[in-house]
Each structure stands twice: as C-alpha cells, then as structure tokens.
C-alpha cells in the first residue's frame, strides 16, 4: 500500500483561520504532493483530537502530520483518540505550530513564527517514514546463569518455572550462599534450593566451569564453556543472567593491619562460629574478646552489617565473651536493621563509630593489639582482642576481569560489573540479552537482589517469549561496498547489538534500539538507519533553515537545535505546556539520540546559514541509549577543534545535557546559546548561504550550480 499522508492544520479555537500566516501554512501543506490537507479546529480539546482520528480512518490515511498546539501533543490526547478508532496510536506526528499572541486572553491562537519551516521540515521527514516487514525469529530458550550464590539459584529456579532451560555455571564446586549469612533463614533457603536444582530435570549444571566466550547476540548467543575436566562445549543460549560476585579481599583499615590467623574475614568468623571446635582450635578455650570491623576501609553495605550482627550475637551469647564493633557509617538501610542493631547493643555488644579517625594495630600470635581514638571521650584507647574480623570489599582478580571480558562487559571502578549508565538500572548490562543482578551489580541486600532477579526474568520473558519472536527486520543497513570491516560500529554500539556474521557487521533487531550511534561513528559512512537516513536530516535541516534572506540583508541570528527525542524533546514539550514561549530564531530538529548527530549534520546547519548549532543530549551517564550522549560529547569536542582549524569560532557548536524533567533548564540553556551567538555575531558562512539561495532561484539544481560556479 502506498503512503497516504494527511496534513492536518488546526485553525485554532476561535479566529486566525483567515490570517495570512495561516494561509501560508496551508500553501506549504498543499505543495506537498503526497498528502491531503485538512483544516480542523479545537485540536486542543478531545473533540478536535477525535475529529482528526476520525478523518484519518475515513480517508484510510497511512500517516499524518498534525500542526496544532502542544496540547494535542499530549499522548493522552491524540494517541488515545487514535487507539479508540483502532488505529496505531503512534502514527501521527504532532507539530507545535501555535503561539498565543502576547497579551491575548485564552482561546486565541496564532501561528508561531517559524511554523512554515517547521511544517516543511516535518513533511520532509514524512517522506522517509517506512514500515519494515515483520519477521518471526527463532531464539534459543536456554538461558545461561553465571554464579553460585542465592541470586543465581533464584534465577535458575525462576527460569525453570517459566519454562526455560537454565544452564547454571558455577565457578566453584559448591552451590553455596555466602557464609556471611550463616544463621539466617537465607542459608536454609539456599541449601534447599541448591538441592532442588541438583535434582531437578531440565537444569544443566556445570560446576567449576569457565566461560571461554560468548558470541552472537541477544536471542541467539553461543556460549563456549570449559567444564571441570577441561572439556569444552558450545551451547546455544538466548540470554545470560550474571549473578557472580567479584572475588573479595579483607576491607582493611588504612593503617597497620594485614590479613592473618587473627585478622580474618567476617565470613571466616561465621564459619568458625558454625563449628565451635574450630573456634576453640584457633582461639583456645575462651572466653573470647573479639573485635568486628565493618566498612573501615571502603564503605560497606547493609548486607555486611547484617553479617557482623549475626556473628556478634552468636559471640555475645557466650557468657563472658566481649564483642566490640568498629565502624564509621553504620549501614542500617535494610529491612529492620536499625532494630537489629539496637537489639545487639542491648545484648552487650559495644559499638565504636569513627568520623575521621580509625583503627590502628598489630597482629601478634595471641591476637591483635588495637588502638583507636575514642571520639566521645576524646581519648586514645588501646585494647587486646583475640580476633579481629573484617568485612570484605571487591578485589577483582584477573580471572574476574577475564569473565567480564568474555561476557562483553567490563569491571567498573568499584570492582563490580554495573555500567555507569543510570538507565542500565535496575538489571541491564551494556550488552542486550545479558542481565546483571545481585552481587554482580554492586552492594545491596537480599530484598533488592531478589527484585533484580525477577526483573531480569521479566526481561528474559520479553526477549525470548516461547522461542519465536515477531520483530521488525533490522533498520540498520550496512553498505557492503563501503564497509571496510573496521568494526567501529561493533565497538560503539551501546547495546552490543552489532553482531559479526561471517565477519561482517550486522545489527541484531532484537537488541538494536535505533539510536544511530553506529551510523554516526562509522568512518566510512557505510551505515544508514531506515527512516533516519542522512538525507532525511540534511533535508530537514534545509527545510528548517528556510529562506536565509537576500544578499546584504541583515538577517536575524539563528540557532539550530538538534534535540534528543528522549530527554530534550520531552523537556521542551513540558516547557511549552507550562506556557513558556520558545525564543525566536530557534529551529528544532529532533534526533533519536544525540549519538546520531554526526559532523555532516552540524556542518549542514552552518552551511545553511545557521549562526550556531546546539546539540541537546541526555546528561552523560544518564543517556536513554546508555552511551549515546557520551559519544555525542566526544564527537562535539572533536568537531569543535575542526571548526577552529577552519577559522570558525568553535563556540558556534554547543552541547548541553538535559533531563526530561528539566523544563526550566532547557530554556535557560537555549537562551544561553542564543546569547553566545549574539556575542559572536553573524556566522561568516551566512553570506555563502545567501549566495546559494540567490543562485537556486534560477531553477538550476543547487549542487549543479556549485559545480558550475566552483
């Protein structure tokens, strides 16, 4: 079916339909030969939106551009009306073409300055809309779970219950929870669960396994695994859930102490307490004086405090034992931990908290001699303890780094696998189809970990369904003739969606979000995204530029804003709904992600006579496509240098991060950018744009003209 585009123009609540500006809009719309033009009224109200939806249905339109005020832009308005007619709620592009005339009362609308340009821009974009065929993809229904603690066991059981085949890869021999939780219900739960999984049918258990590689992509990974005997096998898995904690080392206070017989981990103490004869062997008959330290080096987490509390209570139960707990920030941010600390104090455990000072000491074969500054008494204290037990902090080993690398991830600065991006929360990783949960992500507690596991299981359900998924075929087109297989796209894709199939890059439609980062970064310009082609943006930018004006004519300074659809666009929309007017001299082009903005777009803008370009992205680390805005930042920095080399002020290219809730800030950023342009004065390239415009008036195609002139 060929495209039938409807162009709807709202003539406003009352008035303005006869104005020249409105007529000009109509003419622009009518000049677009693939569409039909409709004039409607009151699109700010439900009846107007309903009328648009009705007309779309009646005329069997395949797509629509609606020029109205921001009120219709409300997803609740038009999209609900479209759904009510049984139409695709996303089929219409709504343009904000309305301005309330200064000082006028409500209900009076006017055509906004720049509306004509915005309309032709949208109509240009309309020509690139393309629906791609849906395909049924077969995906693997096995899921790899890496880890051996309780979260890994939860994940495996959840998969089994949901009808998937879990492959549980444990780095060690035992399916075991951290010993730290000894004495809590979690231990019994883990033991029961381990037993259940060992006996269950439909679970593949690979103990002491090692992941050698994870090829392919979301839905169809190939995991290469070496088992205990060194036998290597290849498994086809649809997704991966990683719940493996990094290896840990004693969280030592900064001064003087080292791990030894008498300076041990809380985990070790917990297992000693589990078997009193071992404790006796190590420390003698007792009674014992034991020091516990939590978070004295790096910050601890509630789970560490829970572990310390369990040990403390067990020790304090012994009649003459003495227990002192040293900490700086008592992390009581867990369910009932506050009450638990109070109870433990009541049971005779002494708490010493440091603000600035810390614990110093030496280990002897009899125990440890500890010194500390008692803040409340203002005195230095010293005491002998039979044992000092400390919490542990991540100390990633080469093997853990390797595991991360094999998974296509990396170990973060804090030793965990969680990526920096806030949008990877709560359970995503930098690679689609690979989830990070529990102790692989970072510090937490069991409640949070349990939720993360379920969130990942929901992700698996969404990705793999029952083994076949219906998706739109890939929008990412790699031109084989241009591609030199440099694999830049594979490296930059925020989702790890670029697979290497027969060594050639190919985007996986199950993972690709269409952010366009690959297209912008490809040095050979070999990648186009269907619907977001380079030609679309050059067309839109040209349309947005509109007429520059005649040679020698003073022209208003103009700013091209390339706005991220996920952050800047909603922020601007919110600003408009709050009644703010956009400053004049501004043209907006929306991009799927700032990561899509390439040098050509910026240069096109400058060449078309814009005095400057402002890229509005998400804040770095808050990008909705994880790292798109980071790439945009790097590219903008680079491009600024290039501009400087050509003699153009690099300040003409600006980039700013905004969050979708920052409706005030986004306007402030734009105003600041305009002020910068006011200071810089008109762009020297503007004259060129004016020459081009004069030349195109003489019917010759612009590029031909330049080849003739040039």
């Amino acid at each position, binding site marked *: 079916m060929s495209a039938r585009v409807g162009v709807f123009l709202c003539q406003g609540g009352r008035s303005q339909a006869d104005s020249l500006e409105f007529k000009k809009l109509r003419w622009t719309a009518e000049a677009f030969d693939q569409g039909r033009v409709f004039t409607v009224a009151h699109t700010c109200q439900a009846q107007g939106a309903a009328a648009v939806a009705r007309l779309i249905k009646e005329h069997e339109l395949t797509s629509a551009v609606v020029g109205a005020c921001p*009120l219709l832009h409300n*997803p*609740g*308005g038009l999209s*609900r009306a479209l*759904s009510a007619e049984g139409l695709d*709620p996303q089929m219409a592009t709504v343009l904000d073409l309305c301005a309330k005339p200064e000082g006028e009362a*409500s*209900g009076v609308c006017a055509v906004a300055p720049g509306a004509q340009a915005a309309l032709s821009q949208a109509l240009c974009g309309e020509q690139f809309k393309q629906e791609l065929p849906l395909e049924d993809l077969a995906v693997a229904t096995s899921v790899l779970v890496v880890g051996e603690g309780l979260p890994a066991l939860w994940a495996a059981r959840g998969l089994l219950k*949901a009808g998937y085949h879990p492959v549980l890869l444990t780095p060690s021999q035992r399916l075991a929870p951290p010993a730290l939780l000894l004495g809590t219900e979690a231990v019994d739960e883990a033991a029961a669960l381990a037993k259940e999984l060992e006996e269950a049918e439909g679970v593949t258990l690979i103990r002491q396994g090692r992941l050698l590689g994870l090829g392919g992509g979301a839905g169809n990974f190939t995991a290469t695994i070496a088992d205990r005997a060194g036998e290597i096998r290849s498994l086809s898995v649809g997704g991966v859930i990683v719940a493996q904690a990094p290896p840990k080392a004693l969280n030592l206070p900064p001064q003087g102490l080292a791990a030894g017989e008498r300076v041990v981990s809380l985990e070790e103490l917990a297992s000693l307490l589990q078997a009193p004869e071992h404790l006796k062997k190590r420390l003698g008959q007792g009674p014992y004086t034991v020091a516990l330290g939590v978070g004295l080096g*790096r*910050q601890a*987490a509630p789970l560490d405090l829970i572990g310390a509390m369990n040990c403390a209570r067990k020790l304090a139960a012994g009649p003459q034992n003495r227990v002192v707990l040293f900490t700086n*920030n008592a*992390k*009581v*941010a*867990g*369910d*009932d*931990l*506050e*009450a638990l600390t109070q109870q433990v104090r009541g049971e005779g455990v002494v708490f010493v908290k440091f603000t600035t000072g810390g614990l110093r000491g030496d280990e002897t074969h009899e125990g440890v001699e500890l010194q500390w500054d008692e*803040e*409340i008494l203002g005195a230095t204290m010293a005491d002998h303890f039979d044992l000092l037990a400390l919490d542990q902090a991540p100390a990633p080993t080469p093997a853990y780094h390797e595991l991360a690398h094999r998974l296509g991830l990396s170990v*973060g*600065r*804090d030793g*965990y696998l*969680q990526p920096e991006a*806030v949008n990877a*929360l*709560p359970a995503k990783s930098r690679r689609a189809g690979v989830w990070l949960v529990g102790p692989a992500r*970072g*510090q937490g507690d069991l409640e*949070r970990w*349990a*939720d*993360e596991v*379920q*969130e990942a*299981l*929901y992700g698996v*359900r969404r990705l793999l369904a*029952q083994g076949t998924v219906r998706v739109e075929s890939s929008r990412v087109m790699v031109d084989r003739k241009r591609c030199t297989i440099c694999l830049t796209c594979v490296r930059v894709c925020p989702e790890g969606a670029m697979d290497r199939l027969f060594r050639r890059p190919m985007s996986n439609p199950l993972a690709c979000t269409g952010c366009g980062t690959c297209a912008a970064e490809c040095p050979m310009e070999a990648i186009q995204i269907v619907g977001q082609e380079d030609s679309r943006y050059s067309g839109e930018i040209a349309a947005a530029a509109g007429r520059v004006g005649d040679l020698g004519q003073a022209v208003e300074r103009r700013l091209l804003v390339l706005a991220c659809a996920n*952050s800047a666009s*909603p922020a601007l*929309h*919110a600003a408009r*709904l709050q009644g703010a007017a956009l400053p004049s001299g501004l043209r907006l082009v929306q991009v799927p992600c700032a990561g899509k903005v390439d040098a050509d777009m910026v240069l096109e803008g400058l060449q078309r006579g814009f005095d400057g370009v402002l890229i509005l992205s*998400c*804040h770095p*680390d*808050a990008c*909705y496509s994880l790292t798109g805005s980071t790439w945009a930042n790097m590219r903008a920095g680079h491009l600024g240098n290039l501009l400087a080399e050509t003699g153009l002020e690099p300040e003409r290219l600006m980039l700013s*991060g905004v*969050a*979708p*809730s920052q409706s005030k800030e986004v306007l*402030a950023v734009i105003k600041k950018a305009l002020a910068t342009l006011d200071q810089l004065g008109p762009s020297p390239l503007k004259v060129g744009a004016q020459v081009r415009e004069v030349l195109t008036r003489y019917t010759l195609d612009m590029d031909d003209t330049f080849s003739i002139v040039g």
Partner: protein
Amino acid sequence: MGLPKKQVLVIGGGVAGATTALDLAEQGVAVHLVERDDFLGGRAAQLACKALDSCLKCNGCLAEPRLAALTSHPLITLHRASTVANLTGFDGGYQAVIDTRPAYIDAERCTACGLCLEACPEVEAGAIRAPRLAAEAPRLAIDETACLYFKDGQSTVCRDVCPEEAIDFGRQGDSQTLDFAAVVLATGFTPYDPTPASRLGYGLFPDVITAMELEEMLRTQGRAVRPSDGEAAGKVAFVQCVGSRDVNGNNYCSRVCCGYALRLGRALAARQQAEVAVFYMDLQSFGHAVDEFLEAAAGELRLVRSMPYDIHQPPEGSVMLDYQPSPGAPPTSEPFDLVVLSVGLAPNPDNPALAQMAGLDLNRHGFLAPGKQGVFLAGTAQRPMDVAEAVASAGRAAQGALTYLAEMQP
C-alpha cells in the same frame, strides 16, 4: 501456553504502578490502573534532576519515560481520582468496586488556558491543581477540600471565567464493578510529616522546608530560594533522619535520604554556589561506586556528624541551628538561609484499609507484607526504596502476576 488474556488491577499510579502496568501490557495483558490522586506520577514525578555537568545517578529520570508511556498505552485503562472501595475475592479472581470522584473540570474541554488559576482566590491552598507531568491529559483539577464552593456553595469565579465552559460543579462521580484475575498494590509511601515534631521548626519558621518541597522547587523553578523573601538560598543545611531511625517513631532507616540529600546538596553547591552543610548520624549511601561518591561529596559539602537539637528563626532573621560541632565541643548556633529536613519514607496511611481489603498483613512498621494468592506488591508500599528499586520490584510484581496468570489458565 498462550499469552494470558485476563485483566489485572493495579492500584497506585506512581513509578512502581506505572512500570508494573506497562510490563503487563507489553505482554498483552489488559490493565486497569486506579490512582487516588487527580494526576498520575506519585512522588517520583516531583523529583528534580540533580545532575552537575554529568549525571549524579539519583535515578530520578528513570521514572519519566515510564510515566509518559503509561498515558498512551492502548491496553491500559486509567482511572484517575479513583479508589478501590471494595475488593472481594472469588474463585480465581477478584471483583473490585472502583469509585471515581466527579471531575468538575471537563478534561475533554479544558485547554489549560489558566484563566481559572488566575481567578481562584484559593489557588495557593490547592483548590485548582495542575499536573506535574507534561504527559497528563486532564489538565487541571478542582480539589474539593480546598475549593470555596464546597464550603459556601456560591464561589464560582472559576466557572464563570472559563471560556470553554469546562467547569461544572454539578458533575457526579462514578462507580464501576469489574472483575480481575490478579491485583497489584503499588500504593507507595507518604513522606514523613515533621509538623508534630515542633523541635524541628517545620510549619513554625518559613525557611524550614522538607526535602520533598526542595525537590519540587528545583523541578519547577530550577533553583532553591528562601521562602521568606524569595531570594536564592546561599547557605543551606540539610538535617538527616527526620522521621527515620527513631526509637519512638519510625524505627527504620528510610534508605534514600542520604543519597538524595547529598546529591541535592552537590547540585545546589554547583548550580547556585550555595554553601551546604549536611547534619547526619551515618551516611547510608551504598550500591554503586559509593567511595568515590562520598569522597566527592565530602569535598564539596560540609558533612557534620551531629544532629541539631534545636531550630529557631527570629523574626527578620535567618534560621538558627543549635548543634554540637563535635563530641565534647561546646554547642554552637549557626545561621542558615534555608534548612531542609530530609524526611523519610513513612507508610501510606491507607495501608491498614488496603491490607484488610486485599487480605494482607502489615509488617511491624506499617508497610504491606506479601501473602495472598493473586495479590502482588510493587514499590514503596512494601518498604522504603529508591526509584530504581521500585522499578525492579515492579518487574517482580509483573513477573509474578504473569506466571500466576499462566498457571491459572488451563
């Protein structure tokens, strides 16, 4: 096993309810979402972005796209200004009576021109309210508890001034009875109200505000001002653990306050060059790259381990905080432009009624505890959590409900 077709009731339209509803709808399940307030979004829709040049990872913006998507999903039916009046379990499902308050402002007509807001004498008291989210379709709502008409029966300035004739005080509410296969409670928390603790000066002194108010102020105005004179606040104190870790009150840590206060403090220091002090007992931040975060915070803010024992503000003067700077040191009194009380997450006062209706128990702090078949919990209705955790718990609720529906279906 086909996609479950039965419909699910989600109570609460905050980020947890929104995420659960979307997760279910994405899997083809029809959802009815009941929100008590006139608008969706819950508390997460009040949070401000705290980014400096780079994101500070407050998680605030995780809520935005989820809440926006909620308003337009074809499988989700929204019941705003509504409550579940009754929930009766029957074989394999629940029957819910959903009561909707009258919409005195017709959302189908209102163009949000704002004339009524200008005309209303009680707008400060919240008689006419506007949504926090741009994506909200009913643009304005009248609050019966603050509107004069419902007191004197004759104040109708808004109705008279509305050019769209959208306001009608005679409108009636609505009640529907619907059947559901499963129920999700995502009814959230309530920020601790510091008014009764007069020692904190809240409600007594104008420049003592809650962190919730600061979040909203930053979100809507982009900066922190002193309520007494509207000037940008140059010196700001945060007082932690207000309504948390209190043996005689909420005896638990609210988990998010240290995180948000340090981030708000850093944002104020960077954006308006404010001098910021944070009064705390223990810094609870944990999770991701904490050491680095706390180090940066310690460099930019004054972290004082001491809880102020008195807050007062002389007329015409700045708020004074009385505290002991360090153990053993003499108490001092220090002036601040703005004192922010980092209020904790208290249980929703509706919890006892909700628990009774849904056949659940309350935990010892008054949050909802899991229990009943076919009833799932999401978000801060269960315990304090941040937005990311609320999203994860919503995933868990959705996953639970989907599994339950699949098992129920022959």
